[in-house]
């Protein structure tokens, strides 16, 4: 459930979802197995609905397009007995293909811009020095005629990017981000080192909020994957986490 949610949210539209499915199926974009991809596509859209993600109409239009292509491809090529004419006929996938290729170009360009953005976020500049406006009060009430709202927004955006030096400032010490995957394997390693079981609380060595939350999620995920089981002998008793045999086998 969680997994779906994250993934569905990250698509930028039907073309993006299709590219993802094609990539995942490891098939050539120029030779899309329409039946398979359509089926997967519909599953995703259905999942969106179930998760009440409000599948946008664009996704549904694409679903219709896919179904149409699929049915065209199923039609035997016997409407024209003449071989020559048959070859002249368009591949029903062609239009979709060109849209996908076109979209993919810009998706890649967007990725390139993202890298540039990352670089730029480590560069800072000072505020412009305001000149002394001592003379020419009369002139001042005249406004230049080449300044637009856009210039004001531009100035405001620059301001937002600027660092603010207010001394003295307390530095916040931020812990490193811990990923759930790392924490999952750490938990498994710990269990492995302790004859495959551990008290629940032992798995929370650091009393730091983020660490606790991530560890908790990691344990839930391990339970879901059937890599660990949790046993509580009676109410309020400490939970004991066991490494499952399946997991030991798969190691």
């Amino acid at each position: 459930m969680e997994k779906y949610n994250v993934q569905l949210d990250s698509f930028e539209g039907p073309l993006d979802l299709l590219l993802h499915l094609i990539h995942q199926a490891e098939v050539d974009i120029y030779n899309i197995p329409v039946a398979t991809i359509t089926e997967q596509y519909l599953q995703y859209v259905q999942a969106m609905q179930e998760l009440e993600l409000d599948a946008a109409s664009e996704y549904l239009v694409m679903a219709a397009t896919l179904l149409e292509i699929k049915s065209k491809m199923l039609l035997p090529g016997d409407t024209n007995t003449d071989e020559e004419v048959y070859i002249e006929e368009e591949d029903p996938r062609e239009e979709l293909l060109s849209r996908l290729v076109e979209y993919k170009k810009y998706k890649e360009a967007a990725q390139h811009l993202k890298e540039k953005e990352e670089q730029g976020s480590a560069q800072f500049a000072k505020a412009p020095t305001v000149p002394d406006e001592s003379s020419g009060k009369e002139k001042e009430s005249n406004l230049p005629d080449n300044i637009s709202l856009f210039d004001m927004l531009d100035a405001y955006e620059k301001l937002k990017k600027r660092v603010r030096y207010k001394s003295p400032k307390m530095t916040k010490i931020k812990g490193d981000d811990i990923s759930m995957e790392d924490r999952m394997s750490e938990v498994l390693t710990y269990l492995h080192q302790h004859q495959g079981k551990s008290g629940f609380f032992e798995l929370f060595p650091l009393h730091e909020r983020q660490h606790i939350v991530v560890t908790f999620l990691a344990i839930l995920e391990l339970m879901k994957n059937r890599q660990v089981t949790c046993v509580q002998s009676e109410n309020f008793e400490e939970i004991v986490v066991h490494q499952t045999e399946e997991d030991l086998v798969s190691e």
Partner: protein
Amino acid sequence: MSEEELQGALQGLLYVCGDEGLVVHDAARVLGISEEETTQYLNQLKDWMQLNMPGLQLKNYGSKFQMVTSEEAAPYIEKLAEVPEKNNLSQAALETLAIIAYNQPVTKAEIDDIRGVKSEKAVQSLVNKALVIDAGRAQTPGRPIIYQTTERFLEYFNIPSIQELPDLHESIEEETEEADLFFNQLDEE
């Protein structure tokens, strides 16, 4: 940290602090060295700039170091500021104006706080241009003056009303439409 890294860090710090100046104590904390050492490095940088950067210099006021333009560059800076279109609404004035427009009524202290630098001059120039007006005093301690934009501001930027300023808050969610019926039909195939 190598000496070059230290000097680089100090150059960067001095530059972003700009007209506010860099307090030695803060620099020392950031670099993880003593205040004496920091002062020593800053003085080294000062000497180096004197020899190698004819347009900029370091000034030392008590516990602060500030990067400033040198006297030789002053005539050119004045000339740059003289350009009418340029001077009339500087970036400083424009960003101050944006802050007032989106937060009005607002005090000078609040503007300074958002900009991170003193905005006295920028506010004054906006008042002189009648884009912004002194709208009385806040009911907070010290009763500071509060500012708001004028009719002329709306006219100048061709905005029907303050409510129609573009939204600064981000939300880039795709527009979604209800289409459950449509989907249910697809499902049958």
